[in-house]
């Protein structure tokens, strides 16, 4: 099975406190630790496991600046066979539909049976997978937490729905799926693994090569534009307990007793 996994390089929220810069035009980008989007890492692991079971290959692709190469390489160290960086000034300012249009052009250059995205990325949109599927006219399932290959033309997928329940579907290939965390346990990538792929050439694809005009991606095509970043006025936020740890614990225990929190 030929599998393409879309990945994105994002600031790692478990490693960083995200802050707004002084004029609210961006987040503070200095000293940010970046990594591959959490959901995408599960998608790559799943692709590798499917390939190891039924054969084929795994390609990872990202749309981003040249730093994007770093996550492509990381996921190749994990076990992806090929990596592609799609990078062009012309793509700056793309909205979700623009990114999807770029990915669609890349998909059409290959011969993929299965295309995976993460369920969502750093902007919490959860849009690229569904848009890409619609543009390609291929079936889509979101929030997938189980994949079983039935035969060359069909797979069975579980979707995570409310309350921990799972919705089972059969879906024809080729298709697009967005992957939910917890579908597998992504393998650890050590320094040695990274070193092994350090010298591999990663092809860079541009707007011209993909035939993407300014009407399809980039600022002028974008119908949504982010105006600013801000931290909402702290409304009725929590009362923060102050003092020494001992004092804080005293207050907390008092509150817990009053509210029935200690039996």
């Amino acid at each position: 099975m030929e599998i393409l996994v879309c990945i994105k390089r994002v600031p790692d929220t478990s490693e960083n406190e995200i802050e707004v810069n002084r004029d609210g035009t961006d987040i503070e980008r200095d000293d940010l630790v970046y990594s591959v989007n959490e959901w995408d890492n599960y998608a790559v692991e799943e692709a590798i496991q499917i390939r190891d079971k039924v054969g084929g290959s795994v390609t990872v692709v990202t749309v981003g600046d040249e730093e994007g190469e770093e996550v492509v390489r990381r996921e190749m160290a994990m076990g992806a066979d090929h990596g592609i960086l799609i990078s062009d000034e012309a793509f700056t300012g793309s909205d979700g539909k623009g990114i999807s249009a770029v990915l669609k052009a890349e998909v059409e250059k290959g011969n993929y049976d299965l295309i995976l995205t993460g369920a969502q990325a750093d902007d919490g949109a959860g849009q690229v997978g569904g848009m890409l599927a619609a543009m390609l006219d291929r079936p889509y399932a979101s929030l997938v937490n189980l994949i079983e290959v039935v035969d060359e033309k069909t797979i069975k997928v579980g979707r995570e729905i409310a309350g921990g329940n799972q919705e089972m579907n059969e879906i024809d290939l080729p298709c697009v799926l967005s992957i939910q965390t917890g579908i597998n346990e992504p393998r650890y990538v050590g320094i040695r693994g990274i070193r092994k792929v350090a010298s591999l050439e990663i092809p860079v694809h541009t707007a011209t090569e993909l035939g993407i005009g300014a009407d399809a991606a980039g600022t002028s095509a974008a119908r949504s534009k982010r105006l600013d970043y801000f931290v909402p006025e702290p409304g009725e936020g929590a009362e923060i307990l102050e003092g020494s740890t001992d004092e804080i614990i005293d207050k907390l225990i008092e509150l817990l007793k009053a509210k029935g929190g200690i039996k």
Partner: protein
Amino acid sequence: MAQQIFAYILHKDGTADDTALELIAAAGVLNPDASITAIVAGSGAELDTVCQNIGPRFDEVWKIDHEALAYVNAEVLRPALVRILPKASTILIPHEHFGMDLAPGLSVKLDAAFLPDVFGLEGIENEKLKAIREEFLGQVSTHVLCDVSNGVVITVRPGSFKADESRNRDIQIVDKSAEALADGVPGSARRYLEVVAAEVGDVDITKSDVLVSVGRGIEDQDNLEIVFDLAKAMGADVSCSRPIVDAKWLEKSRQVGTSGQTVKPKVYLALGISGAFQHLGGIKGAPFIIAVNKNPKAPIFQAADVGVVDDILDFIPELTDRINEIKG
């Protein structure tokens, strides 16, 4: 003619979801004079019950009735919606698992703009809609300006608009089934099979009065011991956020949130949990929430009643010791 805004209604067992009235509120912010049309898909008597129940709240209810929609599959519904929605429509859809399945592709097929997971709206000026979203799991917010001249699909975060119960209209139900399914039920390349029910665990956190809930801030599986010790001292049960379940450190039945359990404790102690809306969405009944987090800007402090800014690995054992001391 007043602008027509569409709201997609989720329902189960003949009852409309809470989000139905929230979408009315959102539509009201977009345009207070708009006529609001509910779209409800399903099958048979259950569908009719839903239409009757929500009927008075909407100017019109469009129903799409077919046995193939008894369990609504987004891949089947999407082409049906594309057939009935007028050009340049505005359609509001709840941002949960079904909306996430349906909406992005719908916006492409309608050639409309897409605004995902919106939790605030500031109205429309010159065909530009200003919306508020969150990024980085709620750590920062953004204003987004969206060109809606060719229509827009908006997914609205559940719970972010206060239900509008004020409307009371004559019920107007329009059967759109024939038009929506004019070419028959779209043959779907994705076929619904069944729903596999969640596994039941050894504790039922939905019944707990006091929950000690742990998130990724616990850092390591071995550290869970201090959480269980604290819970024992308090007489509480242990629940958790999603990453703890993803890592298989605790069973799924302990996960609080939209894709886990809905809990209604009296007291909820959140330890090393950032406060993503999918987590908070599982906490109901307005419990007293205490959050301990080392990041003073963590969104959980917006939801909590009381907060402690500290490292949980230090704080938890101290708290446990003191409770045990007091109890003797």
